[in-house]
């Protein structure tokens, strides 16, 4: 078994524990959990790049959430308003591990055509936490 598979297994277990055991969490806890998996600290700048750039597809995260998600966004196809994503501007964000996982799964698929890695999720949350 390679190291990467071991890390993946460990990360899956850790997240599963986080998702099932405690639904209520904090942005800092979620970032820490995601960072612990690849054992690399989160990099806010990298999170911002991932968030604002397009990844070979029609949408970036910003298409719906706005370039700096401290304000309400708007769904790119339906026009439905989306509450701010930065936790300082919307205290509900990243306080529910299952909800966070659900939206990362769907939206990374839409934007990148694949799921985001734990490191990428940690980067994005770390950048969002710098927005005050």
């Amino acid at each position, binding site marked *: 078994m390679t190291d990467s598979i071991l890390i993946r297994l460990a990360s899956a277990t850790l997240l599963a524990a986080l998702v099932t055991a405690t639904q209520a969490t904090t942005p800092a806890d979620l970032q820490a959990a995601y960072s612990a998996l690849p054992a690399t600290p989160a990099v806010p700048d990298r999170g911002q790049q991932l968030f604002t750039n397009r990844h070979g597809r029609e949408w970036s995260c910003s298409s719906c959430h706005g370039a700096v998600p401290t304000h309400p966004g708007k769904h790119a196809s339906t*026009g439905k308003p989306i509450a701010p994503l930065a936790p300082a501007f919307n205290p509900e964000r990243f306080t529910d591990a299952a909800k966070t996982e659900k939206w990362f799964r769907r939206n990374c698929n*839409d934007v990148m055509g694949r799921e985001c890695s734990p490191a990428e999720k940690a980067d994005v949350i770390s950048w969002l936490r710098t927005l005050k």
Partner: protein
Amino acid sequence: MNRHRWIPRTLWVLFALLGASHAVRAGDDQRGPSVALLPKYKQECAACHMAFPPGMLPADSWARLTSDLPHHYATDASLDAATVSELATWLSANAGTYKRVREAPPEDRITKSAWFIRKHDEVPADVWKRPAVKSAANCAACHTQADQGNFNEHTVRIPR
């Protein structure tokens, strides 16, 4: 000066009758839609778009939609299995069964249903493209009480 003096009385009666029958038809719009929405349906589906009244699509359409949420009109709307099953059951039980909704519309889109197209045939093409409207699925852009299941045309306000 009264510009309408020349209109015979019978015509006025006819107008009144037309108006009355029109009002009844407009009132019909509330019959299907006004089902109380399952909280989970509102929570999950209305995160991205309006919580469309379940009576606006037949059960066949809802079954197809709920069975392929990871490919939901070019977006990933996937949900955990328990939630999907809860939504599918409720949508099936509350799906449209009356005449105009009996047949599944193309692509299972409410906006491609014959009744939808007919009811909106007087809306000019450019209205749909206005930034405040954006999509024919954005009912609430013009139907000011759409979130309460009221699509009566008297509540329509088309944004500039």
